[in-house]
């Protein structure tokens, strides 16, 4: 039996941990999930400390919440902060089956625990007599030294692996400006430079596409990543509207008959753009 203090602490922490876990599970955006998970981990770190695993608790905070979760967030940012799972399940029966399996598994685990003899807790006071860190150190460098060394190898391998995976081998010398220009002329797809974004900028210029003379969007003017994420701001309607108004006023001012007035068409289909990924593949 534990002290009341620990009991109170446990219930608080348990609620936080489970809440965090459920939050992670249910949040639509990856970044929210990551934050929820961080909360759970912090709660767990406290749980460790409460159970006499001070060192682990600290490690949990430093390594997990500090390093690993940051790594997660970093990747989330890289992939796109706002990328969210669609809630529609595509695999038939997956959701129900997963929930059922989860429930079943939970029931099984709980039943297993309930059936186990978990009455006598020795407590760590004896083991932690010379201090938790010292105790762990003694074990790590004696009994588990071999495993410890192997983990070292594992970490090295992981580091190398990560580098290998994310590293892109340059098999050819990078093309010079001149070669690129020549290439562009040769391909005759987009000879002049791409249009710059935000010519008629009223917003953050990067995600506002340039407009072509007829008022349609020049998608090329927006950077590939944003296009990939579908974050190109739709401005064409608004601009077209304005142009139409302008034309209308001009015509009024000039007193043109309606037949002589230019037809203002709806937004044209976006121009055939050269998707950046094709270029990547071409390289």
């Amino acid at each position, binding site marked *: 039996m534990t002290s009341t203090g620990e009991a109170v602490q446990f219930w608080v922490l348990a609620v936080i941990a489970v809440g965090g876990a459920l939050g992670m599970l249910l949040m639509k955006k990856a970044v929210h999930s990551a934050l929820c998970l961080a909360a759970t981990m912090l709660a767990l770190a406290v749980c460790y400390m409460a159970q006499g695993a001070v060192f682990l608790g600290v490690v949990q905070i430093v390594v997990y919440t500090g390093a690993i979760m940051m790594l997660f967030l970093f990747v989330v940012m890289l992939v796109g902060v706002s990328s969210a799972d669609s809630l529609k399940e595509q*695999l038939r029966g*997956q959701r129900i089956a997963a929930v059922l*399996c989860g429930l*079943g598994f939970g029931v*099984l685990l709980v039943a*297993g625990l309930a059936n186990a003899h978990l009455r006598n807790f020795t407590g760590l006071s004896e083991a932690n007599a010379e201090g938790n860190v010292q105790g762990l150190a003694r074990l790590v460098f004696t009994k588990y030294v071999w495993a410890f060394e192997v983990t070292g190898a594992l970490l090295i391998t992981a580091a190398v692996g990560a580098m290998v995976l994310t590293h892109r081998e340059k098999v050819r010398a990078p093309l010079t400006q001149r070669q690129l220009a020549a290439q562009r002329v040769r391909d005759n797809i987009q000879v002049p430079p791409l249009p710059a974004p935000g010519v008629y900028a009223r917003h953050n210029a990067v995600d506002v596409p340039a407009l072509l003379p007829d008022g349609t969007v020049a998608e090329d003017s927006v950077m590939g990543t944003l296009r990939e994420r579908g974050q190109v701001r739709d401005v064409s309607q608004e601009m077209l509207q304005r142009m139409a108004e302008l034309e209308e006023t001009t015509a009024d001012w000039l007193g043109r008959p309606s037949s002589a007035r230019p037809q203002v068409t709806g937004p044209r289909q976006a121009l055939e753009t050269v998707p950046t990924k094709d270029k990547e593949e071409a390289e």
Partner: protein
Amino acid sequence: MNSLIPLLVAAPLAGAALLLLGGRALDRLGHWIATALAALSFALGLALFADMLGRDAEHRAVTEQLYSWIPVDGFRADVAFQLDQLSITFVLLITGVGTLIHLYSVGYMAHDERRRRFFAYLNLFLAAMLVLVLADNYLLLYVGWEGVGLASFLLIGFWQHKPSAATAAKKAFVVNRVGDMGLSIAIMLMFVEFGSFAFQPVFATAGDASEGKLTAIGLMLLLAACGKSAQVPLQSWLGDAMEGPTPVSALIHAATMVTAGVYLIVRSGAIFNLAPDAQTAVVVVGAVTLLFGAVVGCAKDDIKKALAGSTMSQIGYMIMAAGLGPIGYAFAIMHLVTHGFFKAGMFLGAGSVMHGMNDEVNMRHYGGLRTYMPVTFATFGLGYLAIIGFPGLSGFFSKDKIIEAAFAKGGTEGWILGLCALLGAAITAFYMTRVMVLTFFGEKRWQPDADGNEPHPHESPKSMTVPMVVLAFGSVFAGGLFIYGNSFLHWLEPVTGHAEGDSPLSAWTVTGLATVCMLAGAALAWQMYGRNPVPVKAPVGSLLTRAARRDLLQDDFNHAVLVRPGSALAATLVWFDSRGLDGLVNGLAAAIGGISGRLRRIQTGYVRTYALSMFGGTLVLVASTLLMRSV
């Protein structure tokens, strides 16, 4: 002297090998080599004959063991030759007539570019036929039996570019194979019954076996004889076999090979004597064929086919005689020999006529040839007189004896057979007179051939007429020679045995009746064809005539009963094999493929599905483990 026996076979065999392997180099000389080797064989035969005459009757039969052929435990087949009176008779007939026909072919085939091969095949035939008659056991006889079948196949189909010839050749071989099946079953029966199939031991032991077994053996031998000798019901091939060159028809399909069935039955006399039921079957087959062939012979316009019908009929006589038992054996052989002379002579005559008439075979397109081909006319005429049994000529004696023997069979049976034989004699006279009249008498009905050439009948060269003359001599005198003092009978007696029949009619009565029948038949034919003009195009004729023209519907029967169902069966089985059996296999494969295709869908390729199944699997495993432990 006995060591000459293998040489008898070896000479023509070597000729065949030499000519076939020799290549073009032998094109100019090959036919003379072949003829010389056939003559050598004949000379050897004569020498052996002389040697045999020098010994007394008891010691005339000799055997010459060459080597052990198929030595397997409990089974011994030897290559061994047996030369006795019966064999030597055949040897002389085969090599003698064979040599003459070789000679004839030199002229007849002069313009054929494949003459060398023709002679090689002829030599091959001689060798095989000699093996057949010289074998001292049934298995070696079987070798010769099929060997002559092969030679016959090759020679009938000699003009292979003619589809009809190729078909006829195949038909002859396959029908013969049915007969051969009988021979091989007979050999197997003998082996099971006696543990041997050599002539001497089997005949010596035949008495121990049950009559049923012997009857079975006899019937199987009869089947073999039917195939080879073109007897009902395996007669259908002989008419088509006339597709071969005429010398082949003379040698193989008249004088020698087709008589092998008679040889087989006479040779197996010891078995047939103990199996009366089998003998009855033989007699019935012989009698039926003798009428069948005669009727067919009456209706054919193709001179060679008419002669083929006649051959069938004459062999029917021989088979009938052989079926009569010891009374008839010697007469069967006697008729066989005389028939060999006159029928070979007539075929050669027919060949000579065709030679002069641009290979025309339709007798309705002949007529009045006697003045253009005097030698052919004379030799053919003598053969004609011999076959219809004109008193004094060879056919008269041999046929007369058979009719006598038929009557001597006794009882109703004897009467029926005798009357059949007499009727046959009358029909023989009728159709042979018809052939004679249509060909040599009357006015010319010559037709231009397909290329529009008018025929210019002429006498054939010496190499062709000489053999015809020699054979005509044989047709005239052989019978008298044989009958004089019953010399032939006594000659064969050690092999065939002898029995005197008790004829209800006296010998002279039978002779008189036969002569009357003959004259009646000939007169009727003269009345129909000699006195009245012969239409160039065959009239429609009565139902019987039309049936007879179609070989009494034998081919239609075979086609309907055997060929059509057979090919339907083959087609069905082909279908069954590819759709049924193989379909089963492929279906199994397709089913497995289909099931796999279905199962493949489980592998969605989505990691989460796999994770779910792993998770679920773990769940089930853990749960079941826990359950097992709690139980």
